[in-house]
């Protein structure tokens, strides 16, 4: 395969790309390299090679646990023909060379880099080969790259990448490069250990919250507990008397207390006296929001999908099934609470942040400081979880505001309560379904009205998972109502699918039960035109032993999802013990197209299941008086080690273009579990989280 290179993306740039706080680094074999690597020569934006033969790969995305550093390195290294043990990785700054919007959202890292990074690796390889050919005075065709060196195939001569780096860096990038046939891959497709593991078992990995600067002050911000509330006036005099407190400054979102350590800042914040204008959201509660949803779905909504004539088909159906489903607001609760380090100077600004949105962070700093983008630098740090929360830049803007106001470098930390009570939540949602069956019990009509708060423009996030079902049902009508009660909402791992797949896969099970059909058999029939989902369904069914007897009290449930370009089927086995749901086993079959790192796929499938299961069994943010009622993990519990089901992951072999994986398994786990609960108990769970009273 020969691919035209976009020459603009390989514009030569001799300026050093700034990395994070580099304090020594570990090679992939675990040995510690020198504190400062030899000056690496730039072959392109992604590949630098040092005279010491070390290869630096620039990872333009960010790492929140999803394995991007490793998988993107695999793509580069595959074509570069470098020694995996000689690579090191670095997060570069924000640069147009890396695209117009650097960040990690929508499980898109592999999808957007699958070709471009292989091309970057191949381009660098060709430059190294060209440099060797020139040294030897032979044609390029007589040279081959292997294991961090170029070999002269007409003799035994061999030149290491390190010895070729300088000459190669002066060559133009080739106009086109040939990419390997996937059957020749040595790295891509092989289970590969994470590059970031060694630093994450000895405390040396630097997360955003770990960044330290000379002269830095530690801050926390007092914000209005009611969303949208503003400071009317405040008195910081007592806070200033708190030992360790150095300064108190007002910023648009509240009042910041700065101290010589985080704890003193928190103590100082307790001593603030603030009068708030709480604004209109103060009258909002979960009860009023639910009532609004219920009222709105009585009326026709905006049509998101219309196929055939749902209303008429319902009227003429042999059997009609109706159900209402609800899901709550959810917090992200990443283990690393939000934080950001910023240093605003008169002529420049630097930000050190664990962020999913590097370009957005840059734009936010530019907006607040009024500086030119080239004078603002974003240092990407490891994230202690993101799950969509770190795609927002509010916490970055706050740190920039505080540093600008205080004139010193500042580390702003959110307490767990700040993090949970000032989130941009997964929206609460309410869905009313009506379905019709024909005389043989097969689905004829699928209609739904969804009420929730869409975001990101348009209605997609409100209806994805309900409107775009793959099932071949003749008549479909999905409508939605946009309701905005003033609670901030945003991306949460798998976005609209996180609630809508629960709705849709539960309701499909209800149609199966009403029509006297086996839930798996019904899906099989309705997926006749969706071969990839069907293959995943068959694989999951075979591995789970669908139809085989289970111990008394146990039930099996199936659910599928079709998001981020991947196709996932889950079968859960559950039982109920004195009102407590026990998930024993989850079998997950996934077709995510061409797999880069099978170990990474397995990790992410398990991770997505734990995330979705936490929400299904325990998650719920409630509002009273415009305030979030939960503050810490005793009020917003998550799955623990003793509740972890046995998860089996099966990958459907595929040569299709890669799909996403970080969000693939989160949507399907809740309905797989509630459908299994129906099989075990006969009780249909129509609201999350699952409550003992709904099973009694």
């Amino acid at each position: 395969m020969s691919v035209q290179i976009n020459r603009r993306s390989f514009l030569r740039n001799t300026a050093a790309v700034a990395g994070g706080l580099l304090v020594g680094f570990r090679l992939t074999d675990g040995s510690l390299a020198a504190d400062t690597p030899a000056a690496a020569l730039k072959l392109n934006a992604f590949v630098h090679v040092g005279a010491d033969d070390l290869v630096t790969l620039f990872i333009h995305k960010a790492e929140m646990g999803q394995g991007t550093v490793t998988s993107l390195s695999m793509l580069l290294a595959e074509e570069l023909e470098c020694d995996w043990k000689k690579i090191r990785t670095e997060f570069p700054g924000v640069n147009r060379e890396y695209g117009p919007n650097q960040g990690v959202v929508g499980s898109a890292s592999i999808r957007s880099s699958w070709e471009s990074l292989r091309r970057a690796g191949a381009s660098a390889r060709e430059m190294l080969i060209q440099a060797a050919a020139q040294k030897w005075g032979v044609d390029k065709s007589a040279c081959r790259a292997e294991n961090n060196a170029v070999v002269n195939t007409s003799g035994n001569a061999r030149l290491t990448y390190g010895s070729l780096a300088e000459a190669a860096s002066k060559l133009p990038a080739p106009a086109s490069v040939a990419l390997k046939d996937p059957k020749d891959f040595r790295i891509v497709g092989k289970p590969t250990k994470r590059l970031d593991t060694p630093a994450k078992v000895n405390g040396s990995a630097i997360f955003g919250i770990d960044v330290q600067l000379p002269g830095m002050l530690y801050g926390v911000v007092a914000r209005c507990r009611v969303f949208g509330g503003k400071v009317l006036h405040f008195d910081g005099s007592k806070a200033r008397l708190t030992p360790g407190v150095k300064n108190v400054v007002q910023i648009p979102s509240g009042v910041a207390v700065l101290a010589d350590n985080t704890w003193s800042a928190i103590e100082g914040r307790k001593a603030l006296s603030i009068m708030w204008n709480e604004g209109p959201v103060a009258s909002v509660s979960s009860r009023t929001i639910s009532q609004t949803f219920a009222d709105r779905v009585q009326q026709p909504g905006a049509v998101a999908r219309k196929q055939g004539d749902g209303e008429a088909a319902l009227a003429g159906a042999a059997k009609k099934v109706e159900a209402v489903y609800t899901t709550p607001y959810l917090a992200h609760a990443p283990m690393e609470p939000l934080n950001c380090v910023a240093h605003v100077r008169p002529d420049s600004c630097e930000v050190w942040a664990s962020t999913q949105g590097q370009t957005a962070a840059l734009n936010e700093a530019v907006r607040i400081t009024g500086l030119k983008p080239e004078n603002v630098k974003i240092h990407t740090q490891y994230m202690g979880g993101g799950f969509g929360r770190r795609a927002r830049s509010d916490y970055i803007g706050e740190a920039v505001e505080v540093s600008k106001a205080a004139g010193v470098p500042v580390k702003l930390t959110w307490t767990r309560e700040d993090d949970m009570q000032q989130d941009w939540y997964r929206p609460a949602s309410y869905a009313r379904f009506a379905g019709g069956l024909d005389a043989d019990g097969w689905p004829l009509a699928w209609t739904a009205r969804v009420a929730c708060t869409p975001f990101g423009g348009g209605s997609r996030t409100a209806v994805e998972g309900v409107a775009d079902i793959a099932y071949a049902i003749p008549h479909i009508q999905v409508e939605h109502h946009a309701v905005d009660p003033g609670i901030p909402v945003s991306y949460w791992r798998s976005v609209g699918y996180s609630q809508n797949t629960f709705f849709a896969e539960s309701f499909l099970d209800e149609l199966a039960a009403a029509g006297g059909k086996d839930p798996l058999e019904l899906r099989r029939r309705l997926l006749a035109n969706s071969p990839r989902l069907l293959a995943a369904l068959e694989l999951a069914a075979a591995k789970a032993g669908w139809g085989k007897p289970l111990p008394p009290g146990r039930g099996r449930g199936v659910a599928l999802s079709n998001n981020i370009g991947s196709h996932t089927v889950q079968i859960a086995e559950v039982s109920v013990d004195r009102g407590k749901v026990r998930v024993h086993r989850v079998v997950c079959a996934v077709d995510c197209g061409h797999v880069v790192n099978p170990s990474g796929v397995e990790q992410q499938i398990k991770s997505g299941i734990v995330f979705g299961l936490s929400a299904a069994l325990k998650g719920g943010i409630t509002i009273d008086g415009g305030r979030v009622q939960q503050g810490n993990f005793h009020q917003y519990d998550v799955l623990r080690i003793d509740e972890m089901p046995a998860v089996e992951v099966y990958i459907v072999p595929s040569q299709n273009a890669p799909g996403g994986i970080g969000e693939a398994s989160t949507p399907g786990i809740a309905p797989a579990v509630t459908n299994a609960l129906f099989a075990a108990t006969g009780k249909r769970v129509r609201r999350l989280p699952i409550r003992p009273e709904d099973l009694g």
Partner: protein
Amino acid sequence: MPAVKFTLNGKPQTVDVPPAMPLLWVLRDTLGMTGTKFGCGMALCGACTVHVNGQPMRSCATPISSIAGKTVTTIEGLSPDSTNPVQLAWIEADVPQCGYCQSGQIMTAVALLAKTARPTDADIDEALRNSICRCGTYDEIRRAIHRAAELKRAQGGAK
């Protein structure tokens, strides 16, 4: 306020901070040792776990005044070269994803193995159930603890 003296990762340490200041923030902000993580501030999540006189303690809820004269071990002091059996097993099982909770998980696992050479799954549940991982690495944690127990016994046998 009187200075607090204690032993940190085998070396004498003196800090002059408010007596109520939690050990977590003394480690992170006063001493710049950031391997110990802030997760909840209420001893609910386990991310800040360190050893005090060999026992696992939530440093976010441990006032520095209570540490006077005691011995504290953090993730940085577990081994000079990541060769504690638990660290070796963690690398072998490729446990971490985001990695943020792992210092606390590892310190909790080391304390478990110090007390229980052959932990059962139930022992692991009991010791680790208050250490939260949002990435869901629980399977790998369990596997790594069993493996670390093997490595530790093998080391013991070699001595």
